[in-house]
């Protein structure tokens, strides 16, 4: 009897929990289905392929276990790819986010004609990577490009931006920042809009300076948006491909051969599908780790209203 009573008492609760689960999953179902087919299936296939030698068509030939991984970590070329990737992220993410934040703060003023400036600032997100990269190719051109014309007017000697291993990665980073700024700007501006303007007004009444209100009101309230932008910029930066393909093709001397580009070359040009897969798995793990760390650290600092 007691047992039955318990059951009756328990059932509605667990039933409710179950129905919550069901409802939650129902909302997620479309996404989960598509992810399963178009993301997880290829990913598992990639992991599988990374354990084999494959022929040029990508059919598995011989099982080699972790050989591809071991080889990669012994290869100087892959290690320099790793280094280039990390450097590239360091060059692009902080600078990109700061630039976008600056522009968003600037464009968040209530001024006449501000809509025009906002469109201009966000316009780079309308540019396809292919078109932008070609433009930057001309800008950097050692003989006819504007970059050197500008440098020369400042009395410096002309540079071979993309041909010098020391400057190539930075020179690719610059257009990348430019391309990503449009989007980050738009998101951050949206985040700024969401901040209650009465907070600023009360700040003004209290006689607080602009910089103080930026630090104490704007940034904390903007933190969820900032977390988002940082995460997305990180991931995008790790996966940068198009501009490298057009501007440097991974050179000179592999100084811009970031992992994604190296994967592309191995998979689509050299047909080393096994090794390309192994690199893809490593890259995936790497970004995952960085993102988890960033979340652990970031979510604590983020203020949700």
């Amino acid at each position: 009897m007691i047992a039955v009573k318990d059951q009756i008492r328990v059932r509605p609760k667990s039933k409710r929990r179950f129905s919550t689960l069901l409802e939650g999953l129902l909302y997620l179902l479309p996404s989960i289905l598509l992810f399963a087919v178009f993301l997880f299936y290829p990913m598992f296939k990639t992991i599988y392929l990374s354990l084999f030698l494959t022929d040029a068509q990508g059919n598995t030939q011989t099982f080699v276990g972790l050989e591809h991984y071991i080889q990669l970590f012994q290869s100087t070329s892959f290690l320099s790819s790793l280094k280039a990737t990390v450097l590239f992220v360091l060059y692009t993410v902080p600078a990109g986010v700061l630039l976008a934040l600056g522009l968003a703060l600037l464009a968040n003023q209530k001024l006449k004609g501000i809509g025009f400036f906002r469109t201009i600032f966000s316009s780079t997100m309308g540019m396809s990577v292919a078109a932008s990269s070609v433009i930057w190719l001309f800008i950097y051109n050692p003989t006819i490009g504007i970059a050197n014309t500008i440098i020369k007017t400042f009395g410096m000697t002309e540079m071979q931006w993309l041909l010098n291993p020391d400057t190539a990665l930075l020179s690719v980073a610059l257009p990348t920042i430019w391309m990503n700024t449009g989007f980050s700007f738009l998101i951050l501006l949206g985040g700024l809009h969401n901040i209650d303007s009465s907070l600023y007004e009360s700040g003004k009444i209290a006689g607080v300076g602009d910089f103080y209100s930026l630090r104490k009101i704007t940034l904390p309230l903007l933190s969820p948006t900032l977390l988002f932008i940082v995460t997305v910029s990180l991931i995008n930066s790790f996966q940068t491909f198009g501009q490298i393909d057009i501007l440097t093709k991974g050179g000179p001397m592999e100084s811009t051969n970031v992992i994604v580009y190296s994967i592309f070359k191995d998979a689509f040009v050299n047909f080393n599908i096994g090794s390309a897969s192994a690199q893809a798995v490593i890259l995936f793990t790497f970004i995952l780790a960085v993102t988890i760390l960033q979340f652990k650290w970031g979510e604590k600092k983020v203020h949700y209203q």
Partner: protein
Amino acid sequence: MKKSNILVTLLTLMALLLAACTGEEEPTNGGAVQADQPKEKTEVVFWHAMSGKLEEVVDQLVADFNEQQDDINVKAVFQGTYEESITKFNTVAGTKDAPTIMQVFEVGTKYMMDSGKIEPVQKFIDAENYDTSKWEQNITNYYAVDGEQYSMPFNSSTPILMYNKDAFKEAGLDPENPPTTYEELEEAAKALTTGEQYGFSILNYGWFIEELIAAQGGLFVNEDNGRKGDATEAVFNGEEGQKVFQLISDMYEDGTFYNTGQNWDDIRAAFQSGKIAMYLDSSAGVRDIVEQSSFEVGAGYLPVPEAADREGVIIGGASLWMANGIEESQQQAAWEFMKYLTSPEIQAKWHVNTGYFAINTEAYEQQIVQSEWEKYPQLKVTVDQLGDTKTSLATQGALISVFPEARQKVVNAMESLYQGTDPIEALNQAAEETNEALKMANRKK
């Protein structure tokens, strides 16, 4: 008001989604028209990587072919760059989505042979005893092994030395006598180097190194340049290769060589803006350069070291492959199209409109070619250079499964020269890395 706005937007979005799921038949409209015709044409799908002006020429050729007969309909489809189209071919080869004719760049030759997805065109040549004596052997040889023709050369080019005649005059050099040896080249470059102007440049592209090695009779890999069996070792770091690298390194240190990177447009811009006075270009690009430059442009043979015998050049570009595993009638139709392409008239048009070589030497006797040559004598230089080429293992070109990778290694070595790496060391490193790649590739067999 606000809420209903969102509602409307969302509903429209939903409607759009639904419309997409039901509205798929739209694109098939084009196919229906053809089905109405009484006689069923054999469809030949032709995948190519020809973009820009070249695509217009290809489309024109195909349209002309479709018009002049009633049985075959060729459909030319642009499939991105050579790399992209070969990736796509890989995925669909052997299925109903596969093309009948596939254009593949020259370094993909060995890869296609080994793929098992192609039918050598020799089969069709033999079947009707087709006369190939008019074909330029220096072109067709590249795509043949042991006398068996695997694919049909399509867009073929070779490297050529381009120079600024005005700059030659200014430097006191004979504008009608471009340098032909390394020694002369170095001397000319020295004379041409003045403050803003550099003497010479080579694109950081593996093809040019292969050509400069072959011009002296050097091989790229062992096993007779990969034509006797699967290559197992790179030999491009031999004497000939070392001379090439030494030349670049010496000239760079001398300040007479300008590094222009990997991009064709960059090196051409450098030439047209007077930054460099001589450089190596593809024969296919010659006419545009002549047309667009504000000074007189000359063309010359690839230089070789004084002590070396000139062997000639290897053919570059791409060829057309016939797919297997498709209906014989389709293959036959594709063969008809290929034959059409090699006729003298078509080849003459091709040469004149694109700058690529004609594989049928009779084409050069056509009137349109002759008058074009009068206008652009530089084009004739490219044809002569090819005609003067001695048939040998070196000029036949290498067959390597990992050719694209080998090229990347060579480019890497070239780039390291500009950082002061010892040329022999750089070359050996590239050879070693290529050996690794070859070893890996041979394991997959």
